[in-house]
């Protein structure tokens, strides 16, 4: 199917099914139950899963296949956001020109940054990309204020030309859409105690992310993908085999930069504003964490990692002391205060602590990330069922 072999087609179908059913899967708890705050099936969060998943998929083409660790991918995310907000301002509120511009402009940025950075490898490459991303951030924050609107961030206004949309008909700001489908439109279905929200924005992001996933699957299985793995494995042998590793790494860098730019464009399409803080180095570090937590060089890992981190960010940062007090109210008074105080450090503002602890645990015990964890579980189950089969051979 679509140029994939049977095994990959099956894998792709499972990913499609999971993505389309996400509003159900992430809402396992009834809306008014005490556990409802662990539900993640609301549009804003699901959109972020898809968008950051897309970015991590692209990042993995560079880091997972070639081993070049870029610490500057947030620059492309930011560039993509700015490019698409400009499209919203100048051309139309339709997301298609915005996303095309986001991808192309970030591709050009990636070409320039990659061309210079890829002259070095290892830690020097990482530092160079980090330096470029910080430069982009500082420029966006100060010098380039006419283009980026500096600290305030770039926003759409009623007085924007929007030459394809015609004159504004209402006094409220327009929302981005896909040929009449508004990105913020949503439909909620209540079944028994559960409430499921289906939003246009999420499904739009999901379809783009699925296309991105499909392309990355094709790249992984292609001769080009094999060359990228060869770069990671032994660049010396590669050069002495008549292959020029530089254009291969540059192509991988540009492709992953375009993925990041597209993700940035989607962020702007969901909420049409772009700020410089999107380019900060912490944002670059985040996509590195996502890829490592999920599993470097695996197809599914980066998506899982992105989901894991965004889930922790949203769920743990929402929990506050009063929620903790209600959880631990069964404890004696003094003890309750102590326990609540300790846990409070790890939630709300302090959710990064929780993330840090989990990152350490995963890197220490599951160096292959969440994907390796899944594989180990599957292997253990298989072993157990094999052992069971051995015990009852006659059946």
């Amino acid at each position: 199917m679509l140029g994939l072999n049977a095994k990959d087609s099956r894998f792709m179908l499972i990913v499609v099914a999971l993505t389309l059913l996400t509003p159900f899967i992430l809402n396992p708890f009834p809306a008014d139950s005490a556990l409802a705050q662990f539900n993640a099936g609301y549009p804003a969060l699901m959109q972020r899963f898809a968008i950051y998943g897309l970015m991590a998929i692209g990042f993995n083409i560079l880091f997972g296949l070639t081993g070049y660790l870029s610490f500057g991918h947030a620059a492309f995310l930011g560039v993509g956001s700015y490019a698409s907000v400009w499209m919203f301002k100048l051309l139309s509120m339709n997301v298609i020109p915005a996303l095309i511009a986001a991808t192309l402009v970030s591709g050009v940025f990636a070409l320039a940054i990659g061309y210079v950075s890829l002259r070095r490898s290892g830690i020097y490459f990482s530092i160079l990309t980090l330096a470029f991303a910080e430069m982009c951030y500082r420029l966006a924050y100060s010098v380039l204020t006419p283009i980026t609107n500096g600290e305030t961030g770039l926003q759409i206004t009623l007085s924007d030309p929007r030459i394809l949309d015609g004159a504004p008909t209402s006094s409220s700001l327009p929302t981005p859409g896909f040929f009449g489908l508004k990105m913020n439109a949503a439909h909620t279905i209540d079944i028994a105690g559960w409430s499921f929200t289906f939003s246009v924005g999420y499904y739009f992001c999901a379809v783009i992310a699925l296309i991105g996933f499909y392309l990355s699957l094709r790249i992984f299985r292609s001769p080009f993908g094999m060359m990228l793995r060869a770069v990671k494995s032994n660049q010396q042998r590669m050069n002495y085999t008549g292959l020029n590793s530089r254009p291969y790494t540059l192509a991988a860098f540009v492709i992953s930069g375009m993925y990041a730019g597209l993700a940035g464009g989607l962020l702007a399409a969901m909420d049409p504003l772009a700020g410089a803080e999107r380019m900060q180095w912490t944002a670059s570090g985040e996509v590195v964490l996502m890829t490592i937590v999920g599993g470097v060089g695996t197809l599914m890992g980066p998506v899982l990692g992105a989901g894991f981190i965004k889930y922790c960010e949203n769920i743990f940062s929402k929990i506050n002391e009063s929620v903790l007090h209600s959880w631990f109210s069964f404890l004696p008074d003094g003890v309750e205060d102590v326990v609540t105080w300790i846990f409070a450090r790890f939630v709300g503002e302090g959710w990064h602590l929780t993330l840090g602890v989990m990152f350490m645990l995963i890197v220490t015990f599951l160096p292959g990330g969440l994907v390796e964890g899944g594989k180990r579980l599957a292997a253990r189950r298989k072993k157990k069922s094999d052992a069971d089969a051995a015990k009852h051979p006659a059946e």
Partner: protein
Amino acid sequence: MGILEVKGVHKRFGGLQALGNVNLSVKENTVHAIIGPNGAGKSTLLNCLVGKLIPDSGSVMFDGQSVLGRKPHEINQMGISRVFQTPEIFTDLTVIENVMIPCFAKRDGAFRLHGIESVQDEKGIIEQAEQMLADVNMLDKRNMHAGSMSRGDKRRLEMAMCLVQEPKLLLLDEPTAGMARADTNNTIDLLKEIKEKRDITMAIIEHDMHVVFSLAERITVLAQGTPLVEETPENIKGHPKVREAYLGEAQV
């Protein structure tokens, strides 16, 4: 005229003259060995041939074209393949993938963005790689992780990766360095087999006299960066200049 013509090559590292006026001619379809004591400049010479080092002066012509100033991958595309002292293979890839990569390099050149085609659809390349693996008796290890193999198998695989490109010249940099006697003999047999099966020109840099005398048709002795003699193996054995270079003057 040989396929490889080295003329008047000098290379200096700071105050050290590594190569001084090296002349060398490798004839087509011969096995040419370059021997010499430690520090004679053998590796420097080899690195000048493959583009890793650029000589200070002199010329290196291969197949009528100069290799000087070209990058390693360009020189490989001209038809020179190199086997390293310690096998350089793609350790994270499978054996068959290791052999497919040089096939792609030969067919598609130094770079091609074939990102959407599937590797599995490249029937011609797969067939070519499998044929090569069969030639070196490694077809049973087809799907093995290349890094997990024994050193002897890695050496064999590296040879296969070079041979599948059908190079006009195969350079071997101490192919038996650090090997046990049995492995050394296996390598000699492998090289003899290769030599018998196909028309190939080989230049071997070697320490081990046993290897050199079992394989070489011509031998160049290098000492202190200059060639002393170029002769057939029979004439090298008792040559006074060679003894002098290896054993020192007092022994003559």
